[in-house]
């Protein structure tokens, strides 16, 4: 994380398998970034990456803690879930690879585009996962126009 002990920090909880609430945290993060006055193009990338990560939590995890951390130089969002984890991260990063169920697809998700889309929108993405335990995504967006 970029701004430990420094800057604005807000924590959220996401409940897994609760499709009707899926996206609420990302919407709140977007609202916070808008209130602070972050550049719209950066907000959009952060909102898309956050929403994709939140949908992954809802689809695959039991619950998760999301930590939004703002410093003068970057937005950092950490998604730490307890759930089934990812067996093969390299495979999961490939567009089109998916282990989604029919229920997930009926919601309009689970096309195997989530993680690649997070990577595309983020300036920096770190993934760590323990199969059977959970996954942590650490996503960073620089405010100084690096991307």
């Amino acid at each position: 994380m970029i701004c430990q002990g420094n800057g604005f920090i807000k924590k959220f909880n996401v409940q897994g398998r609760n499709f009707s609430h899926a996206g609420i945290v990302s919407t709140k993060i977007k609202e916070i970034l808008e209130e602070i006055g972050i550049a719209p193009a950066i907000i959009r990338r952060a909102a898309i990456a956050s929403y994709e990560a939140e949908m992954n939590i809802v689809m695959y995890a039991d619950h998760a803690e999301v930590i939004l951390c703002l410093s003068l130089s970057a937005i950092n969002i950490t998604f730490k879930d307890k759930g089934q984890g990812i067996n093969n991260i390299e495979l999961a990063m490939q567009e089109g690879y998916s282990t989604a169920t029919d229920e997930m697809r009926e919601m309009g998700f689970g096309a195997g585009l989530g993680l690649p889309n997070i990577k595309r929108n983020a300036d920096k993405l770190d993934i760590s996962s323990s199969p059977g335990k959970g996954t942590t995504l650490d996503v960073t967006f620089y405010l100084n126009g690096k991307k």
Partner: protein
Amino acid sequence: MKLKEIKEILEADLICGENYLDVEIECAGGSDLMSDVLAFGQPGLLLLTGLSNIQTVRTADIIGANAVIYVRGKKPDSNGIELAGQKNIPLLSTKFMMYKACGLLYNHGLAGVERTIKT
């Protein structure tokens, strides 16, 4: 093209957002797959979709879409309509199916999302 012209072309019903009928729409995209919309959508988009759950409104908000049109006469439930009201996103519903709705708008000069997919 203004949203009210799109409403006429598609003979669409306005579900909510009557104050936004003069919004200018510069491009449109049609998909039932919100994963695709998140990956390929762009700000100001008119989203045509046959999916009617609340995630369509959330996705529209996240990508900065200007409006959502539900095809095949579909409509979101009250939660979706309420969220659209909060996020100032007009929602419309047309009886036309996806192919015809998109075709009619394209014929009237409304461009699609400009993005080339690598194969």
